[in-house]
């Protein structure tokens, strides 16, 4: 069962990589073959994930390589299976979407390359979570980065795309270097790169090295996950990629980093660490969440906005995991499990709704050929389906009940609130503050998506693009529908998800909390029993479903049948033009004002007066930018210094033969003296 599905996953993706080049004559066929294969493989992947989750003990398969220290070994334990499940679910819907979306590239791009790379991307991600050997892991990890880079630069004739891709590649490579350091530290004690040896090293790792491994892993995986301040590449790279790829990158790829962190901290380091680690993770999570959403609010490029929200959600996930780590270090296994549960639950949720939102953004892009929200508007009437799906995604990411986002954020809140069981007063006070930041994040996210949806889909078209928009083809709609379905199921059926995640956390925390967290009838989720706190999304959903008609009934009861008249919106007498509408910029203005210390906005206002009078403006030009703090103060200086340094050293290669001879001569003398 497992073996067959594993092999079919690999074979099908492989087919997806190579077959398209066979049909190079017919791009359309290539498209179908590539993404069809991807869908089949993802379906097999779903089976694999579920099978692995419910398998009694981890399964291992390995292929030898003649190279030292390298064996191609995969291990299907519950953690890996869970992430395989995430990847495959997302892959399923996205591939479906891609069949329609990639049509746009036919003729302009080599569909074979695009489809092949797409399959390679999915395969590499699957192998990353399956790998059971550090060396093998790094290889597939690098391949994953490389392939995603190529997908990012699909439209490489645009300079900004090239910049984005390059920036991404460098950052992720730096991250990889840190991961290598992490593994080398483990290797030193283990004497091999197999994860089994990492788990049970010959000699226990010295404390200093444990801390080093912690930090290195945090930086290494954090770069990929996009935690502040290592997130800078993310808002460039994710929007630059074709939308279905962005969906995978934002929804799934950055989750492999979460996987890596859990793998290292809970598996290799055995889940025993000082509370400070958990606190660092929590703090980073909180900061990432807050800054992520704040920068998102300032974006008018729909895809960049979503990209920043990935930073935010990674932050929320890390908050859950961080809380779990803190509890773990205080030996509160149940709560640790709860924290991890919250984190992982949000992981799968984010994969789904962020995927959905990116697909939605892709559809609008497909229909309007622009990513600038200021040029959207009124799309809900042109493309009703897309609007509905996007709305579902927006509600979910804003964590409004009864959506899936609500469940996981609620769980995070609870695990933070339960800090009162920690003996340490500092933590007791810090975690609620984290909760407050989470609350702020939540509402800002709500505001942001109210803006995103409102400005893009509601009111009047703001540009000719929007006016001429058409609903997207069925293939894409179905893809979005699948994603939306996953979101809803995850939302109203926590009783299905929680036992699954429980199987993941149980080995690391040593306790299984599924029974405790779910009420007998499975309707309610409750961290500590109903007396403490509980939610039941199914019931809430039902409640809303019932109460909406109630309002209707009330209306009918009191005021007979409805009489309705349509008329233009009142625009102070003048009849309304799109230009008079509230813009995204305007919408975000108050928030920019309030948090100006973070945004450091620069405003430029040029006014041309009429010749006759200096009171009437002919035309005004208003520009506002927010300062990219991290790039300006963290990254650019490094590059500048490096280049300056290199430039100064040109003199070394000055072209003079005598100089060159002198180098050799001096080296010779020095070495000779050294020997003596």
């Amino acid at each position: 069962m497992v073996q067959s599905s594993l092999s079919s996953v690999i074979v099908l993706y492989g087919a997806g990589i190579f077959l398209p080049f066979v049909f190079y004559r017919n791009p359309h066929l290539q498209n179908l073959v590539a993404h069809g294969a991807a869908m089949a493989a993802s379906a097999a992947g779903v089976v694999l994930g579920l099978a692995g989750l419910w398998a009694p003990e981890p399964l291992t398969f390995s292929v030898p390589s003649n190279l030292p220290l390298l064996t191609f070994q995969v291990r299907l334990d519950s953690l890996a299976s869970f992430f395989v499940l995430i990847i495959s679910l997302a892959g399923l819907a996205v591939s479906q979407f891609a069949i329609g979306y990639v049509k746009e590239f036919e003729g302009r791009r080599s569909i074979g390359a695009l489809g092949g790379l797409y399959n390679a991307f999915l395969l590499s991600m699957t192998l990353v979570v399956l790998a059971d050997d550090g060396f093998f892991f790094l290889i597939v990890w690098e391949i994953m980065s490389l392939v995603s880079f190529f997908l990012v630069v699909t439209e490489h004739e645009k300079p900004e795309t090239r910049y984005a891709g390059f920036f991404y590649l460098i950052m992720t490579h730096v991250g990889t270097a840190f991961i290598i350091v992490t593994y080398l530290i483990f290797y030193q004690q283990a004497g091999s790169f197999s994860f089994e040896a990492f788990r049970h090293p010959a000699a226990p790792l010295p404390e200093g090295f444990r801390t080093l491994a912690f930090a290195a892993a945090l930086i290494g995986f954090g770069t990929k996950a996009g935690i502040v301040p290592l997130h800078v590449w993310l808002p460039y790279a994710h929007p630059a990629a074709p939308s279905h790829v962005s969906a995978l990158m934002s929804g799934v790829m950055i989750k492999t980093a979460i996987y890596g962190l859990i793998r290292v901290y809970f598996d290799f380091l055995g889940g025993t660490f000082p509370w400070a680690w958990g606190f660092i993770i929590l703090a980073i999570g909180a900061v990432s969440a807050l800054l992520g959403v704040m920068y998102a609010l300032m974006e008018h490029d729909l895809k960049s906005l979503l990209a920043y929200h990935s930073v935010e959600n990674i932050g929320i996930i890390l908050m859950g995991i961080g809380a779990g780590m803190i509890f773990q270090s205080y030996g509160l296994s149940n709560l640790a499990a709860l924290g991890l549960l919250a984190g992982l639950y949000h992981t799968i949720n984010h994969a789904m709704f962020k995927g959905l939102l990116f697909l939605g953004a892709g559809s609008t892009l497909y229909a309007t050929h622009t990513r600038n929200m200021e040029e959207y508007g009124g799309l809900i009437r042109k493309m009703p389906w897309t609007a509905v799906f996007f709305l579902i995604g927006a509600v979910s990411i804003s964590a409004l009940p009864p959506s899936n986002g609500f469940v996981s954020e609620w769980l995070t809140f609870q695990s933070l609130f339960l800090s009162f069981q920690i003996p340490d007063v500092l933590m007791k006070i810090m975690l609620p503050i984290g909760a407050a930041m989470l609350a702020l994040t939540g509402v800002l996210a709500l505001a942001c998506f109210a803006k995103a949806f409102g400005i893009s889909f509601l009111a009047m078209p703001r540009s000719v693009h929007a006016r001429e928009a058409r609903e997207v083809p069925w293939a894409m709609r179905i893809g979005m529908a699948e994603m939306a379905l996953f979101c809803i199921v995850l939302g109203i059926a926590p009783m299905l998800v929680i036992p699954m995640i429980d199987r993941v956390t149980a080995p690391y925390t040593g306790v299984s909390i599924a029974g405790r967290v779910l009420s007998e009838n499975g309707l309610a989720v409750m961290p500590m029993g109903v007396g403490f706190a509980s939610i039941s999304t199914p019931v809430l959903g039902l409640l809303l479903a019932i109460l909406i008609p109630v309002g209707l009934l009330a209306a009918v009861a009191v005021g007979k049948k409805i009489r309705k008249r349509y008329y233009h919106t009142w625009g102070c007498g003048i009849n309304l033009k799109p230009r008079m509408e509230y813009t995204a910029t305007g919408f975000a203005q108050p928030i920019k004002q309030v948090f100006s210390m973070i945004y450091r906005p620069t405003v430029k206002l040029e006014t041309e007066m009429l010749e006759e009078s200096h009171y009437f403006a002919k035309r005004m030009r208003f520009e506002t930018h927010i300062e990219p703090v991290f790039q300006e103060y963290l990254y650019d200086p490094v590059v500048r210094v490096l280049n300056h340094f290199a430039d100064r050293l040109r003199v070394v290669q000055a072209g003079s033969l005598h100089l060159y001879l002198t180098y050799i001569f001096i080296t010779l003398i020095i070495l000779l003296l050294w020997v003596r």
Partner: protein
Amino acid sequence: MAIHPDLGSQLVNFCSALLLLTCFAIIAQRRLSACVDLFALQSVFLAVTAALVAFLTGAYHIYIAAALTIVIKVMILPRILKAVIERLNVTRELVLNINIPSSLLICGALVILAFYITQPIISLGFLLTQDSLAIALAIVLIGFFTMIARKKAVTQVIGFLVIENGLFLGATAAAYGMPLIVELGVFFDILVAGLIIGVYTHRLQDTFDSVDTSKLTGLKE
């Protein structure tokens, strides 16, 4: 007939000392043709040293090496160089990278260095070539230094050839000469090298109408 080994080693050392002296003379000399002559002279000394060693140790293949030295380094190569000098009509080198007095001082330092470095391994040397190794190293270093200190292509070539002489002395003195086939190979290579360098200097003159190699700074970062 047997000569007292001490006397033999004295002779060898004396000859090699002469080699060293010619090096200093080359350093001190500005006129190119004179430099070439000095090089030829040095080669003669070299041949003599080789012959001595051959005679004293009965390693007769060294005679051949000595003969080759005379042929190539005393006759052929100086001719080529002279020809080049004639053709380029650069008789003397006015501008130096390092002026002559300090050059001489540096060379003195180099000699001391050479002795200092080789001192520990001298002990395993055969009696009569006691110090030749050190001298050989010194000559190599000085030749090298010449190439740095001088600007004209020709003098650089001379410096290179001086290095070769040092090597040969080293080989002969330290190890009673390499096996014959090696010697032959080495000589062949030196010959070809000399030719190629000659060709190159011609081309340099044609293209840059100067053999002042310090002007060759077109290729740089």
